[in-house]
């Protein structure tokens, strides 16, 4: 039997073939990939992984593709940084940063999910891919589609700033600016996905696409020396990343690659868009949609598809969900840059700010081996920190002026 059994409803467990489907026809629950783990166990070991490609595809046996990978061959396997200077600033002993700001080719964790989605889309015979996005996802789909020779459509709300779409246009997708608000774009895309034979990565290909996030967990365990951390801090947008990191760790445990997982999974949201954090704090088990108002645009999902499952994971693992205000997000970005030399986008600022809060509250213990996920590069959201980075020191073109300035700077620092 093949490793890919098909799809299965997360709610009622009804099984479906491994086709471009995403909603259970019976209960409307989301579908996810159903694997044959006995088959996988035969095909993969710590050794085969270690000797595999230096990319996310070293875990291909645990990803929902049937043939060899064909798209995004260089994504993943990003650095796991031991963040000692940041750890000291936060009062922690053993802090690591999973640095997806340097993911290939578009500098965000979306390169993982899109590599898997487009490889699967090609296997399913699609020649056109699509997504609705205001940033990282559009970037990644456009770049990967260009490399794979696929036709590409990107849907955006028409009021999106021009600068946001430049990074996509360079790859020559068809960018469709929809006259309407975010709700209108969401609804239109849902209808287009049901009408057109396209691989809409986060709609009809979503069960496959979402599995790409598991590679962050696999890499975490492998790079820590085949063990799971005590605590992870994950930004929450749709909620998929957090749930898949947990799933990845549990799969490694199930395959016997790591000892039993006791990781506490915590989520990070911007205060201006925190439907999961609100539900967590109110001890609710469902998500109330909110209207986003935050500088962390890549996390601004007011009605997250996997919010319920993210909340459930956090509760089950003994984690927490915290929020960061806009000033705290900027402070998080600058703290990360100043201590570890990593320039993260606003989502990274949210993660660092929440990491700081959880450490201060004692929810992350000093000795916990902790991993925080930094999911996108700061060059994508430079406007967020423009006011916080200061000005260059200006001097006259002579040595005296330079030395005077240096003395002044030293005095200020003393």
């Amino acid at each position, binding site marked *: 039997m093949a490793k890919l059994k098909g799809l299965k409803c997360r709610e009622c467990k009804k099984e479906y073939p491994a086709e471009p489907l995403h909603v259970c026809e019976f*209960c*409307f629950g989301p579908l996810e990939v159903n694997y044959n783990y006995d088959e996988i166990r035969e095909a993969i070991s710590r050794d085969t992984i270690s000797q595999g490609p230096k990319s996310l595809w070293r875990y291909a046996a645990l990803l929902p593709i049937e043939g060899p990978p064909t798209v995004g061959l260089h994504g993943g396997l990003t650095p796991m940084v031991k963040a000692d200077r940041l750890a000291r600033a936060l009062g922690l002993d053993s802090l690591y940063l999973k640095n997806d700001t340097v993911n290939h080719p578009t500098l965000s964790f979306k390169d993982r999910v899109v590599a898997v989605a487009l490889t699967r889309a090609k296997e399913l015979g699609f020649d056109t891919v699509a997504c609705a996005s205001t940033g990282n996802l559009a970037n990644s789909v456009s770049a990967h589609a260009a490399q794979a020779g696929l036709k590409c459509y990107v849907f955006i709300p028409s009021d999106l700033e021009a600068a946001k779409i430049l990074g996509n246009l360079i790859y020559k997708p068809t960018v469709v600016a929809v006259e309407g608000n975010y709700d209108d774009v969401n609804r239109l895309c849902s*209808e287009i996905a049901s009408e057109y034979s396209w691989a809409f990565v986060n*709609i009809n290909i979503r069960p496959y696409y979402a599995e790409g996030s598991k590679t962050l967990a696999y890499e975490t365990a492998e790079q820590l020396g085949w063990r799971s951390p005590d605590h992870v801090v994950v930004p929450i947008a*749709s909620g998929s990343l957090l749930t898949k990191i947990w799933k990845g760790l549990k799969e490694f445990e199930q395959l016997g690659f790591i000892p039993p997982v006791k990781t506490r999974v915590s989520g990070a949201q911007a205060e201006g868009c925190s439907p999961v954090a609100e539900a967590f704090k109110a001890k609710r088990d469902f998500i109330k*949609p909110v209207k986003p108002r935050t500088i962390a645009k890549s996390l601004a999902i007011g009605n997250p598809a996997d919010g319920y499952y993210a909340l459930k994971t956090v509760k089950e693992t003994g984690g927490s969900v915290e929020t960061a205000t806009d000033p705290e997000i900027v402070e998080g970005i600058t703290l990360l840059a100043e201590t570890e030399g990593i320039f993260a986008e606003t989502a990274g600022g949210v993660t660092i700010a929440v990491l700081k809060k959880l450490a201060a509250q004692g929810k992350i213990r000093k000795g916990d081996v902790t991993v925080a996920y930094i999911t996108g590069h700061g060059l994508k959201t430079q406007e967020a920190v423009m006011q916080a980075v200061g000005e260059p020191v200006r001097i006259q073109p002579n040595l005296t002026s330079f030395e005077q300035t240096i003395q002044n700077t030293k005095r200020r620092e003393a």
Partner: protein
Amino acid sequence: MASLKFHITFPENKIKEPVIYQIGQKYQVVTNIRKADVTEKTGWMDLELTGDPKEIERAVAGLKKFGVKVDPIERNIIE
């Protein structure tokens, strides 16, 4: 004929109103509730609307006018 799936969320002040009944009466659509959780404070519903596409559009506009939040079944798609 088209059939579209929606996730709708009720604010507290709309919980008591027979919104789905009224939509079924006012527009030429078949309403089919597939899953729901409604409490005294809030509630959500996974709803299928079947009918002429234009009539579904009108029914969705009608739902919004009632003050309930209407999202596609996938919730937020823009990432």
